[in-house]
């Protein structure tokens, strides 16, 4: 809110070393490409990039607050305006789809390198924004930023290997992993490398501990919760689900199902291919379902929860000030309400005071009938329907039980995005809402 020169002065030093790091990174890449891979063209490209980064570094360190390279205010405002839970979720889904469809393009090292450069550059430019920096540079958020890049790298690594393997398989060649399946020595190939990792990680942790000390926050209080109050970063995906589901479901049932589902995977998998080597083509279904569940429903929600959810769990754009006074409309309604009141224009069925338990339960069931019907259709009708249509081959190969387990897990997984869509489109709160038994869905 009150961006001023002092902030930019403080961050200038960091940005200077950041851009220097990027320059060195690109220079090393250029030298390697030039010397080792003899790709002079690319080498020149990255050398130039390196030079640009040095230029940015000079600007950042120039000592003048106005010279620090940053995103134009207009762009920041635009990003803030555009971002919201709907755009974010749909956007990441679209990005996921694009990355998947054009994976052959994106796994090219030079493309990936370019994407990395762009991402790092955007990040650097954004760091000149006080609001962005204050969130990203919070000591407990710094590792998450690192994790994001690590995750991207490993995903890229696996995908690029899978793409190579897929091409080889298409050409009738064995996958790369089959080429080198000789045995290796415990010493030095295993133990020595482990030792090196240990030493390196120790050094890294020491340096980290020196320069980025653990934040000390206020003593916990039962009368005052911090705003926003956030779960540990790895649970922020779960916390995001709380927006859409009853705490019991989002906090207990779904997480348990995730664990159960992950344990069940080996027993559900009937595809014998892809063992011991990376491949996408040979296990498209498994790959997509898993990556969707992991990236879309877990990682992106963690990022959302960490960086974009502010006070009162409101959504804030990356460059927006986290004001606790932001208010959003919360007029979500339950399905019975929609059905009885909005559609039929009559009050919700309500048992007379003092009615017998049976009558009361009956009334509740009547009230919740629409929701129960929808739920029933989703969980009971859909599986057989799918078994005879889309998943006919699956059903045949898996047998009834394995199929039912698989399809139910999948439907429950899909219930999250579905519920999100329903919330955004219909302001639907709960499909079934029986507060009498703390049972909401």
């Amino acid at each position, binding site marked *: 809110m*009150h961006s*001023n020169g*002092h902030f930019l002065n403080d961050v200038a030093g960091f940005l200077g070393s950041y851009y220097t790091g990027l320059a060195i990174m690109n220079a090393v890449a250029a030298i390697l490409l030039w010397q080792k891979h003899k790709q002079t063209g690319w080498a020149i490209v990255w050398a130039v990039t390196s030079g640009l980064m040095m230029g940015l570094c000079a600007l950042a360190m120039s000592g003048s607050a106005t010279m620090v390279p940053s995103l134009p205010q207009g762009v920041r405002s635009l990003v803030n305006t555009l971002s919201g839970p709907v755009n974010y979720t749909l956007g990441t889904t679209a990005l996921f789809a694009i990355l998947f469809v054009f994976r052959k393009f994106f796994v090219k090292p030079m493309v990936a390198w370019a994407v990395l450069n762009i991402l790092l550059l955007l990040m650097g430019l954004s760091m000149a924004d006080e609001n962005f920096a204050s969130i990203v540079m919070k000591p407990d958020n710094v590792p998450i930023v690192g994790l994001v890049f690590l995750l991207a790298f490993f995903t890229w690594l696996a995908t690029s290997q899978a793409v190579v393997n897929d091409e080889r398989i298409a050409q009738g060649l064995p996958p790369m992993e089959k080429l080198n399946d000789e*045995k*290796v*020595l415990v010493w*030095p*190939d295993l133990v*020595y*490398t482990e*030792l*090196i990792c240990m*030493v*390196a990680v*120790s*050094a*890294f942790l*020491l*340096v980290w*501990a*020196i320069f980025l000390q653990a*934040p*000390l*926050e*206020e*003593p*916990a*209080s*039962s*009368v*005052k919760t911090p*705003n926003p109050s956030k779960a540990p970063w790895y649970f922020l995906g779960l916390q995001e689900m709380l927006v859409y589901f009853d705490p019991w479901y989002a906090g207990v049932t779904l997480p348990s199902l995730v664990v159960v589902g992950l344990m069940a995977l080996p027993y559900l998998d009937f595809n014998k291919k892809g063992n011991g080597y990376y491949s996408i083509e040979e296990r498209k279904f498994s790959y997509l379902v898993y990556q969707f569940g992991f990236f879309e429903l877990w990682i992106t929600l963690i990022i959302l929860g960490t960086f974009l959810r502010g006070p009162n769990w409101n959504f804030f754009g990356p460059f927006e000030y986290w004001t*606790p006074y932001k208010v959003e409309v919360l007029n979500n309604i339950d399905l019975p309400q929609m059905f009885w009141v909005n559609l039929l224009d009559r009050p919700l069925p309500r048992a007379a005071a003092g009615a017998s338990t049976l009558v009361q339960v009956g009334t509740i069931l009547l009230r919740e009938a629409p929701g129960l019907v929808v739920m029933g259709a989703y969980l009971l009708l859909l599986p057989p329907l799918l078994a005879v249509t889309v998943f006919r081959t699956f059903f045949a190969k898996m047998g009834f039980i394995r199929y039912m387990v698989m399809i139910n897990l999948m439907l429950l997984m899909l219930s999250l995005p579905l519920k999100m869509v329903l919330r955004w489109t219909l302001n639907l709160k709960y499909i079934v809402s029986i507060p009498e038994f703390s049972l909401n869905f």
Partner: protein
Amino acid sequence: MPATEQTWYNLKVLHVVFSVTAILLLFSTIAMLAVDHNRPWKKYQRVFQALETWSAAARVDEQDSSSFEATSKELAASLAEARRADLDPAIAEAFLAQVRTVPADAEAADRGQLDIDMLRQQSDPAERLVLRGDLLQRFGDIAGRAKFREDLCAGHLKLCKAKLDKNRADYELGVAENVTPEILASLLAVADATRAQVLTATLDTQAANTHRKSLEATLKKLTATEDTAAKSLADHRQKLLLLAKTLKDRAPNFGKSVLELPVLDAFNGPLRIDQLWLPQLTLNNNFRDVARFDRCNTCHKGMDKSLPGAPTEGAYSQIETIPIQLPMPTAPAAGQGGSTNDDNDGSSDQLEQLYGFHLSPHGLFRSDAPTVGVVVPESPAARAGLMSGDVIVDVGGEKTLVRTVANTLLLEAIKWGKPVEIVVQRGVPQPYSSHPRLDLFVGSTSPHPMQTFGCTICHQGQGSATSFMWSSHSANTPKQGHQWHDEHGWANNHHWIYPMLPQRFEESSCLKCHHQVVDLEPSPQFPEPPAPKLVEGYHLIRQYGCYGCHEINGWANPEKRIGPDMRLAPNYHEVAESLVSDPGLPALGNTVARWVEEVRSSPDGKQARQRLFDTLERDAAAGPEAKLSPRSHQLATLLKEPETPGTLLKVGPSLRYVASKVGFDWLYAWLRNPQDFRPSTKMPRFFGLWDHLSGKGLEESKRYEPIEIRSMIHYLLGSSQPFQYVKPYDQQRDGITAAPDIQRGKKVVQVRGCLACHQHADFPEAVSTHGPNLSRIGAKMASAPDGPAWLYSWLREPARYHPRTLMPNVLLEPVVLPNGQVSDPAADATAYLLGSTETWKPSDIPSANSLTPAEREATNELTLMYLKERFPAVRAAEVLKNGLAADQSAIQGDERMLLGLAGSNRDATLLNYVGKKTIAKLACAGCHDIPGFEDTKAAGAALADWGRKESSKIAFEQVSHFVMHQLEEKHGHSHTAPAPRAEPAADEPLAPDLAYASTAETHLTPESVDSDTGFFLEKLLAHEREGFLWQKLRAPRSYDYKKAENKTYNERYRMPQFPFNAEEREAVMTFVLGLVAEPPAPQFIHKPTPREEARLNGLVVAEKYNCSGCHSLQMDRWDIRYKPESLGPAQAVADYPFLSPHFTPLDAQKSLVIDRQGRRHATLLGMPQLNPETGKPQLADEDGVPIEDGDTEALVHRPFMLWQDTLIDGEARPVGAQNLLVPDDAFRAGVHYPARGGDLARLLFPVVIADEKQINPNVKPDDAWGWLPPPLVGEGKKVQSGWLHKFLLNPQTIRPSAVLRMPKFNFQSHEAASLVNYFAAVDGAEYPYVYDTRLDESSLAEAERLHPNHLEGALKIVTNNNYCVKCHQVGGYAPPGNPKALAPQLERVHERLQPDYVHGWIANPKRFLPYTGMPVNIPFDKPVSQDLYVGSSEQQLDALTDLLMHFDSFAKKNLSLEAYLKQQPLAPNQPSPAPPNASVPDAAAVSPRPAPSTKDSRSPGVATNLN
């Protein structure tokens, strides 16, 4: 075995990678250790260690100076002298004689004798010395041998005793084993034999012991002088040895240095975290209270360090810059030249010769800084105030950055005979400096020792942290914050909810334990104000009545006190006032009416209130038969006493009878903006606060506010109860002959006490703000037809208008003028005050009676707005149109006022309704007594724990935008053309601070405004409570900025704007922020002793009624530092021994101590002599002759009248002696604590002298004190508590000469008692009951037995024209002459004064009242005429005391009816024509011999006062 040597990874690469990572790990480990080694607190500790070593070394050097050496030499010389002195031959002979008693030593004795003889014969001093030494050596040897023999004997004795023990045991064992009697007998015989041995051995030992002791004693006698000299030399050196030992302990040594090395210091090095463990002072961590750990002294190590021998003076003061004048001899002494070589030692010596100090070769914080190392005690430098450790920053106007420059300047650039002006920087920076005021805080002898209290209980902050930022330091200005940010990486850690209090609010914490607040005012023990800002805040809150709306409840429950308690007292008195106007009251009978009256005037009394409550309950229960109105029944519950009732009165005047006082015009102008009429008013402003408004919001305000003002006036005037004015004195009945006169009235206002509380433009010297400013009072009174009558009434009898008013009845009775006319001073004052208008007139006042259509429209809208809060919209509109129908009379509340609206005067009814609603909305009843609002509750937020209010629960609204907007407008110009700023010099101590003085800022930031505004602005922008409070007090309504558009008119903020200035605002904030409702454990809560409590309670009452407006409650205190003997010699006076000052020898010794600057210290308590013409402190020359202001030639002295005995130069200076002439420099070098109160007395001092001069040109200035309100110092020991209590509640004239009378205040009985206890407590008197045997009849009988005609004789003295009756009234007898010389009535002394006091007073009045004109009538050494009373002075004194203390019984006993019958008729103004009194004046009636006829022999102007 591997199948192949080939590895998967290239081993070479692995090795390289491994070595690189290993090196990285090594470096990061080193980095870790380096970071640990460089933890900030370790650095501070190292520097502090150096600092301690440096100052210890400096002290050693200072001690080890030439004067020390001189003394050492002197002592050594005297030791040598003692050694050279002849031994007393007699003692030596005696010694030898003693030796000879032991035959074995006879030979040695002979040799000793020989030595003595040789010594006698020897004349060469050197030889003698040798011989003397030999002789002493020999004697010593003899004594040593005696000791040896004694030891031998003792050893033998021990052996024998052991043998005896064994033999005895053998015998007893034999008995136990039943051995034969023969054996038994032999055993016993053996034991007996041994016993005999023991006996012999014991005797031997004892003899040897006696011998040895006597030898030693004699020897000691022989060397006594020598020993004493040796001891004083050792003592002298001891001090230095101790300092040297301290230095050795502190100085770094090899072992310590090794342990402090990097890496090693991580393992139990000498630098370690210090912490205070405070298990009782817990820290609230939400889930549980945990013990507090304060580690602050890890870095702040100098916190509790004091100077050696002065436990309340910090060893390391905070940095300050001090100018010093170094005296310079008129010509160079021999051997001193202008040598300027850079040789350090040489110039050092020169400096010492010239000034008496050295420069240290190493600076404290900068090695080459010119730091003063040693200041030789009593040298010119020491006298000028230079201290070791001072850094010389400037010599004669030239900067001195390095030692050489300072050296050169000090030695070269001097003019002989002209002092050198230097500037030094004294003290050390944080965190090394000592805590300020070690007498109050941190010091081991202070009330808050560090070990018990720690740091964070007061300062807050994170005590466990050891780094600058995490300990939550709080910057006092934005600049400081940014400086910290740059130096320490500081940022506001908002996570810690108890951040350290910034310096400006550090006093807030005192409230945690000091719930009474007044205990933080200066006291005799701590004359320096302990918490001035906080106390000011407290008084402001009391004066402005914040508690009327914002309750500050100091009680969590009736058993638990949590903080200061500031709440309105229960409304008993208002309920009674309301009952008075109930038409049904007379029907309940006179007794009930009397109860009502009693509750009305003394609401704190319980009995009448309880009875009234019962009556009201009974009446309410009667249902339809009830005589009182339902409203009265409703109010009955207010008469019940709550468990912890509040104690404070509403600050505003009562508006219950307001119509009797002021009219519409004035009220309108007043309500619109009180400051328009009275700029100094405390009434806040409610209307016209529009700065923050715009558009629709502004329009609404402009439209509705005039209507609200009008409606409030309408309600107030309409509901005002009828008032009975006081009737003026009647011309016939009271004999008033003079018409009211403005000039006389002015005099009345001036001298009859008004100026003690009020200001008036005609008397600019009166500055008290206790009461309102009267400069325009006439304009106010003119607004109502009966205004003048009201004013007269008010002056005569304020309680009639408001029984609880603070305004006292000043008892204005008719006075006889010099021309014989009789005037009514009240009428005169009224006439004068009515003329005081400063030509102010209400302006822009709408018509009182008619509304314009627009106004009517607005009234309707306002009414509708209120009705909508009560009724649904449609119904509200309907009610507005037609009012409430009669059948809706069941409706309760203000809407009842609209019953029958249709049939009545519509405008009036609506205005009345809106008026009442507005008064309720604006909470006028928080300060004023308003009919119909007896049961309103406090309207604002309670403040008892506001200091901890969660800032997320505070509505900041858009106020920061408003403030920024406002400030930007104000600072608009500075952006376009920033003021040129001089570049701060690099060595400037404030350079880092100046660096933040903004020039480059392109827009407004907290740093670009002044530091106070910046501080609060920063807090406001960060949404912290300090910022909120600041703006709330500045412009409370501004929180509606851009919010008014989204609110209805009545939802807006209502707090009015108080006329605080910035300083007052901060004081109020300091108080409010201290309200945290977090009392620590009970043992830490300040619990005054009963005596102290009495003092505090009394102070509260005295403050409330402004007793100190007239009377001095505490005298001026001067802690002077004078050059020895500069106050003149003490006069020897012969006085009664019981009056001589009491000082212990220790006190006398202390007063002789000369400090480093060669001055002595003394505390003077009393009054500086005032100039009789100007009333300003008198200045005089060394002979006491007054000098003019402009006179620069004379050596200025200040005459001082002592009120407490003191010691000067080790001699007592008693009260009552001649005024002390204090040299001005002694005064200026010391500290002055101004008197508490007595302002009016000082103000009137020149006035009454001038008045008296017109009658009596020879008036003695000191006499004037006798006509003015007396200082009340010593009152507790002077008067009887019972009398004082009565006197306070109903004062009588004591001194006829006084120009103004003690007024009659509306004290509650307990308040008067508090004052009585106060006086007893401050004077250390017994209270509340005093028993004095002198008051007993039996003691009188005893006296009479010892001395017949004891009292009769005394009466003869009293009635002798040369003594008492010369000035004193006795009974009906009044001495003729100037009434200004009249002294108090003697016949009433017995009920007023304490016997001890009377006794002392007669002995020497000046010892009790230094300015009194009463002479010593019975001098100590010279009893008065023996024809009156035969006896010694003391007997006469006793007799007089006995007579005065038994005057009534004596008079009664001696009353003869005949005498009474013969008595002439009494004078008409005789107040009490009781027969006993009447009998006294005629001495013939009681005295066997007729007293000599009274003749007027006394000189005019001698007044004597006993009160």
